[in-house]
């Protein structure tokens, strides 16, 4: 792990907080603009009680998407035609323990812990949590998300699991 860099940590934290803000306020277009054109969005699945999947080409993931996949998720939500997504749950993302773990050229690795509280009448309140591993990239307009790996520490999942509640 690299030594503490207050400016970089603050910059990374701002981006992560911004993502949480935009998801919870359902500002989907501004949210997806945080992602680089070639971004990878990945939530592995459980491979056993002790490990998660680690090879998206040979293992099944919960989610493994490029930016077009994320665009399609927004399309699905906004269509009003998805039984599971209408109404959407209220969500509050808590993103914490934000730590810059490596700098590789113009790429910055950042890890964080997350909890999402969500509420929808049929399910009541649901808490899910896990870890994020981000790779951020410095582009002309500022830091963008090049890769986000979301480890979801919940199985026996109640209700949908989608971009807005992990």
């Amino acid at each position, binding site marked *: 792990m690299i030594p503490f860099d207050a400016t970089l940590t603050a910059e990374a934290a701002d981006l992560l907080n911004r993502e949480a803000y935009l998801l919870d306020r359902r500002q989907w277009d501004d949210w997806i603009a945080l992602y680089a054109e070639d971004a990878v969005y990945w939530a592995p699945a459980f491979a056993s009680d002790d490990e998660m999947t680690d090879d998206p*080409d040979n293992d099944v993931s919960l989610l493994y998407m490029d930016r077009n996949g994320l665009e399609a998720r927004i399309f699905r939500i906004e269509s009003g035609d998805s*039984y599971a997504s209408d109404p959407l749950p209220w969500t509050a993302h808590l993103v914490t323990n934000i730590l810059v773990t490596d700098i590789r050229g113009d790429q910055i690795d950042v890890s964080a812990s997350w909890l999402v509280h969500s509420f929808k009448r049929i399910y009541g309140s649901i808490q899910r949590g896990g870890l994020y591993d981000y790779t951020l990239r410095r582009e002309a307009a500022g830091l963008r998300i090049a890769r986000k790996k979301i480890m979801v520490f919940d199985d026996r999942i109640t209700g949908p699991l989608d971009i807005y509640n992990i």
Partner: protein
Amino acid sequence: MEKKTLGAKGAACDPASYIDDRPGDGVFRLRRAVYGDPAVFEAELDRIFGRCWNYICHESQITAPGDYFATRIGRHPIFVIRGDDGAPRGFYDSCAHRGTRLTRRRKGNARTLTCRYHGWCFNAEGRCTLVRGGDEGYTREAMAALDTDLRPIAGLDVYKGFVFGCLDDAAGSLGDFLGDVRPFIDLIADQSPQGMEVLRGDSTYMMKANWKLQTENSTDGYHVASVHRNFATTLGYREQISGADGMAKTEASRILDLHNIGSGGYDLAGGHMINWSDRGNPRAAPLWDSRDELLKHHSEGKVRWLVERGQTVTVFPNLLLNDVASTCIRQWRPLAPDLTEIDTWCLAPIGEGAEQRRARIRKYEDFFFPSSLAVPDDVSAMEGAHDGSLAGGGWSEFALSRHTMIDGPDDAARELGVNVRTSNPGRESETPFYSFYREWLRRMERP
């Protein structure tokens, strides 16, 4: 004559009162209370799950000696473990000493199962290999009188890689139980001469609805164009912005095209049923490239089914083998009248190419997980159906397309050379459900 009563704690349940089946009058109705009634649920645990063959796991999940897979049949925790002789055996997951569960993981490997409570040990054949402190703690006579081995479940058998178990000595053979659904299971099992394997990465999800709604939904072709319209339009949008081609394309177009795509539903008797449709774009299916290889092993009619059709094969009472969007094993277990636990796995041909494998996995993720573009909508629909079923006094008519139902096979079934009880052209029919509910009633009424 005394009325039949079943169920726990004195709660009565008359199974026949839930089904109004009058073939002569063209009536098949289900009393909606069948989903939420606790007395029905208790009786089902005994008379359905306690007596029939239940799917446990796929052989590829327990390949080595000591590999085990733990699950439940009804309320009973059980596990399957492969012995040193290579044979899988099924046991109640309960220590011979004081009943503690023995497996530590849902799946794992243990040549010796050690009870973590008091330290008794068992081998993969179920024999007790150690009673800790037994020499001092028991007299020789007391030890001889103890039943120290694990209790095997009544039956364990494998059909084409699918491992089934049962708790009833009088259940009959697995082959007889599966009956005419076997050639349709073969359509999933025979996709590669090297066999099939369950891929790493699974998921369990919960549904706040009765388990029978999942059984119905697995064969319900009618909801596809409504509930999964969003799946089709979302994938259409993604393909358009991605410029997808080849295997990266989907066949979601099939969902919105009811009239130009061949489809149908079969009542296979024994509670089994299927719904099938021609693939909208068979060349996008990962199996397309294996066509020539498959023709060396199977009839032309069967290869047509394997490559150019998709089917949902529902095995009584709680197993779905789905080969439509991708290849999926799904099993659902009843926890309460209004709560069901669902497991889902991706099954793939051993030795398929990297591009085919990748396409299969992506298509699986699109449809079959609680994070997919389809399963959450199904779950919401079933939860809506369950909640609405509590509205008093209602009946559901399974009447859709009853007038087009014919006895015996249609042309597509003849192509596969299979026996079916009834056929219905078009996936939008409710007549396959008759198979499930008639078998349900037959079993519920058996003393």
